[in-house]
């Protein structure tokens, strides 16, 4: 067995990485729903989930059990094959896209083979990512068609038109970044953003010769529309279309669409981080007086742990009085570990990467909680008449700036 593993170390390490990644991502997806419900609740002056476990922490688990135990009816007259294919396609593609994301500069040893953080590292990573996400439309369109019902059909039509329209500006908005990095590889794009200019990090968003501020705004707006999230969630406008394309889906099949949407949110946030915000690069220089910033992850973890302990001791239920301080202790312990010399270098990349990703996920939820939904003609107007020309202008301006400055 061990001989087989050392001989096929590439295969073995890939499988192990994929399994670990899948477990982490599925847990993250479950808690992303909890995070969203909590944040939206706070925006609307509510408490959000509070009953299942302390601070509703077991709510995702309860939801998961509910999804699995629910009756799974299939409406009459559906196209069975396509009806079952659609949710599978949506979820598989959404999860596959996450396999192309690099999470840190460090390497790990698996079966005597050093591999990077992240499942695969293609030199055309960005292009393949777009290839996979461009297939995501089928999940929505086919679900709408196969359900044999008018509301899903309308929802499917709407969202496939929307996704095709916004894909253009999405792809064009990253061309500026590609021009500046000169590579399709996500790793090289991040590395091209390293360095500082008068203590300001050279991230693509603000770096010379062509700051990608326009590109970033086009990217983020188009990406929110691509993932069918508020304020662009016309595919599932409850007031008009019941539930849109997934009206006729229930139990696990509905959960698959749900998870696909959240996985797409994570992919979009990761890409925004990589393309415009320097990926895993720390915003502070590592040398000189700034080297103390290496302890930021440890300090953040320990402060969060202390807050959790303090909050847990004042919690109303005895169960929470035990669980929350325990979680706080674990978090503080992790913080202390990351301050150790053997871990401090390794943790920097993933810490900054995940912090930035978490910020974009928060922005997603924030936008959903504060902006009203667009009307359909407004949506198409913004896509074709504003975003497309602006992202084209960004391509022209960036190329001009590069040609003028690069002698």
């Amino acid at each position, binding site marked *: 067995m061990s001989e087989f593993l050392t001989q096929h170390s590439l295969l073995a390490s890939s499988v192990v990485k994929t399994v670990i990644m899948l477990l982490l991502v599925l847990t993250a997806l479950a808690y992303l729903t909890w995070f969203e419900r909590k944040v939206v609740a706070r925006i609307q002056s509510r408490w959000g989930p509070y009953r299942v476990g302390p601070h509703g922490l077991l709510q995702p688990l309860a939801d998961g059990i509910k999804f699995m135990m629910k009756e799974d009816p299939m409406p009459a007259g559906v*196209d069975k094959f*396509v009806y079952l294919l659609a949710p599978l396609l949506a979820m598989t593609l959404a999860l596959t896209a996450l396999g192309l994301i690099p999470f840190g500069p460090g390497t790990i040893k698996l079966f005597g083979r050093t591999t990077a953080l992240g499942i695969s590292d293609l030199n055309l990573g960005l292009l393949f990512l777009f*290839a996979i996400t*461009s297939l995501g439309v089928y999940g929505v369109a*086919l679900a709408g068609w196969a359900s044999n019902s008018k509301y899903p059909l309308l929802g499917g*039509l709407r969202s496939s038109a929307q996704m095709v329209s916004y894909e253009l500006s999405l792809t064009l908005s990253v061309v500026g970044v590609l021009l500046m990095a000169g590579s399709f590889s996500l790793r090289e794009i991040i590395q091209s953003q390293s360095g500082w200019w008068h203590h300001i990090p050279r991230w693509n968003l603000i770096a010379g010769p062509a700051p990608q501020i326009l590109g970033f705004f086009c990217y983020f707006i188009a990406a929110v529309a691509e993932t069918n999230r508020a304020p662009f969630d016309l595919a599932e406008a409850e007031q008009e279309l019941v539930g849109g394309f997934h009206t006729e889906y229930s139990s696990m099949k509905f959960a698959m669409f749900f998870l696909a949407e959240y996985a797409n949110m994570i992919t979009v946030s990761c890409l925004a981080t990589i393309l415009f915000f320097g990926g895993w690069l720390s915003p502070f220089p590592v040398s000189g007086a700034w080297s103390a910033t290496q302890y930021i992850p440890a300090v953040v973890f320990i402060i969060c742990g202390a807050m959790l302990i303090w909050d847990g001791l004042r919690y109303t239920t005895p169960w929470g009085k035990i669980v929350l301080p325990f979680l706080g202790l674990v978090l503080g312990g992790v913080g202390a570990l990351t301050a150790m010399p053997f871990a401090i270098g390794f943790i920097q990349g993933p810490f900054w990467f995940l912090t930035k990703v978490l910020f974009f996920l928060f922005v997603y939820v924030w936008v959903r909680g504060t902006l009203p939904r667009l009307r359909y003609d407004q949506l198409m107007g913004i896509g074709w008449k504003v975003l497309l020309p602006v992202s084209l202008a960004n391509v022209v301006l960036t190329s001009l700036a590069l040609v003028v400055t690069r002698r």
Partner: protein
Amino acid sequence: MTTLLFFALAAIAVAGAVSLILQKHPIHSALSLIVVMVALAGLYLLLGAEFISAVQIIVYAGAIMVLFIFVIMLLNAGEEERTNFSKMAAYVGLPLAAILGAGLVYWVAHEGSNAPGVPLAESATRPLAMLLFQDYLFPFELTSILILVAILGAVVLAQREKGEE
């Protein structure tokens, strides 16, 4: 391993193409065509043409076929009617198909193995871009104008005439 993958992808492509013809419903045919295109992208990848492979998926599977499916959904096209082997197919189609198949088999058996392979650079994206935007810039721009003309034509055709409503 590569040979195994090649035969697997080739079998998927051929199966998709056959299913494309045999399916009764337009949506199923369109889905089969997507399978063919993704399998072809896999074959390009085996040949080392990564860029072409990614573009194949983005353009054909991700954009053109979405429009196909969109139109089929909009028209709400039902199942096709069968002609049950028309006379045309029996007297003209079958012999022609047989000749074409025999020709292909003959060519592959006698000439195919002698054809020289085309060497590919490690990362073919940069040379491809150089060719496209320097050596063949004029034909490239000409093609894009051709496509623009087609788009304008479609817009003109779709436009309502004044006073129609």
